[in-house]
């Protein structure tokens, strides 16, 4: 199995007035291509911080992230933007979609920025929206979709450009159990079908049950990192 992502001694400190919060205290972890990993831990344990740093949305205080062989440490803002565009898919807890674009346009937007031609874009978004069960709703705007449907569009968008990894921060937190079950089933199906690496930060035991590898963070440290046998 090839390593797709490596975190080297990641530390992150936030300064608030006189107090310093150690959000991450030297996290060393690596992920293989095609893994479906959940990260859990108490609130404030550093799950989101870790995903943000991996996703290059934040800079670590110390340490480095090697994504697909590229060290993120010394890249410019512009290069980081390009890395996010081409190699990382995000699914956030809420507010994932661009309000003025339809479901299909949201999925296609990134492909458009990458310069993929119109036909290929159409085909890809059609295929993905079908896979996430939104056939027929392609031309709805986010405001005309339910929360669960919006999250599914977000998953489709995250996968659209065949990224190296998909980072999902509590993607089911705003969904009822039926919708979270569906979203999870969808994510594990897509993980298996397209062999994309997915890392999910979550409190949801059902999500954890779905993933073979499960990491627990406490106080910015990895407490356990277990992979179940297949």
């Amino acid at each position, binding site marked *: 199995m090839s390593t797709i992502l490596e975190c080297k001694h990641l530390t992150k400190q936030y300064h608030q007035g006189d107090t310093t919060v150690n959000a991450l205290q030297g996290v060393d972890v690596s992920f293989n291509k095609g893994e479906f990993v959940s990260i859990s831990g108490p609130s404030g344990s550093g799950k989101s911080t870790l995903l943000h740093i991996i996703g290059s*949305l934040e800079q670590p205080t110390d340490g480095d992230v090697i994504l697909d062989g590229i060290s993120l440490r010394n890249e410019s803002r512009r290069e980081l*933007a390009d890395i996010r565009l081409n190699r990382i898919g*995000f699914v*956030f807890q809420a*507010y994932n979609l*661009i309000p003025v*674009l339809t479901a299909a346009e949201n999925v296609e937007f990134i492909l458009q920025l990458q310069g993929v031609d119109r036909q290929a874009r159409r085909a890809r978004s059609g295929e993905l929206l079908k896979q996430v069960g939104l056939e027929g709703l392609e031309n709805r705007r986010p405001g005309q979709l339910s929360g669960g449907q919006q999250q599914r569009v977000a998953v489709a968008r995250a996968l659209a450009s065949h990224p190296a990894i998909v980072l999902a921060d509590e993607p089911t937190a705003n969904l009822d159990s039926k919708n979270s079950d569906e979203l999870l089933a969808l994510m594990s199906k897509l993980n298996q079908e397209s062999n994309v690496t997915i890392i999910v930060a979550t409190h949801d035991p059902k999500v954890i049950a779905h993933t073979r590898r499960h990491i627990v963070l406490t106080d910015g440290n990895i407490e356990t990192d277990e992979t179940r046998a297949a």
Partner: protein
Amino acid sequence: MRVLLILIPFAWRNLWRNQRRTLITLLVVSVGVWSILTFNAVIRAWSDSSLAGSLKNMTAEAQIHAQDYLDDPDMAHSFPEPTGELLQLLNSPSVANWAPRVRTPAIIQSEYETLPVTLVGIDPDREAGVSFIADSVKQGVQLKDAKDEGVILGRHLAKRLNTRIGKRIVLMANDINGRLEERGAKVIGIFSSSPTMEDSFMFTGLRPAQKLLHADGRLSEIAMMSSAQTPLPQLVTMTRQAAPGLDIQSWDELQPMTKGIHDLTEGFIYVWLWVMFVLIAIGVVNTQLMAVFERTQEFGLLQALGFRPNWVILEVLLEALQIIGFGVLVGSLAAYASVYFLQDGISLEGLSAGADFLGIERVLYPRLEAREFFTTVIVVWGLGVLTALWPARRAVKFNVIEAMRST
């Protein structure tokens, strides 16, 4: 380029998300542009008309004199009627009109009163298009021609002299040799103009004036108007070359006051432009800042998805470019329509007495000059987009995470 093509329609859609705000910005920009252009056209018409009025008060666009006449304006400083090269130039298409004059200080005496005045001997036909006297005789008759021996007085001067049409007056002036000469003449016409004009000037035929002053074939002054084909400064230079011994000056040298007032009005137009522009800029910055702050999360999301910082700036600028462009278009069309509507003239008939007094014509003809039109449009558009840079830069300053968090 590819990104630009993606962002243009994207920006357009974003613009119409908040219709009310977009319409308000549109209104601010278009009313601003409309008022700049329309105001400009009306003020310029006013300014040109009052300049034309001042120039008709005997100054014309340029004058030819003997050297030293302006320091000591009497017949001792006269020059021969034009011949040769100068005459050729005056009769060429470069000159719209020119008028030969004898002009000297004089004393006018009625049965009741003796007053100082400037005596002007004219060829009445040649004054048309050069000075007010051609069309200001309101009572009695105009001088028939340059040989007419009658005199035309200003209404106010006639009143002060207690004389009227048909009465005789006596004129006294120094002749070309400095000897005092006098002659009787009949008042044949009364002219109306501004009080200064009415009090300062009296007119008679050029020939009798020359005769009185023993200055046959000599002039004190030639007043001239340039034609559209030759700009005034060029005409002045040409005249100086054609008549090296004479003193040629343009109106702005002869009347620095008038020049100053004219410049002041022009300056006022610019002040207005800037005031309106600042208002437009405040409007644009305000709404764009609001738009940016309202969409913090969205700009965070765009960057998380891989938008380069420059693309975010570009997107906000494109929104501004489109809304301001649209506003400028509406405003300038409205201004064009307004000026078109006013092209037959704004009648000042209601204040016509005042108009005479101010020396402007009774009807103003506003017009938009193409050059000014396009400068205004481009300046407002360009600067408007420049002001939008500020909100645009705000949009990329947000920390992506914080922006996303603010649910």
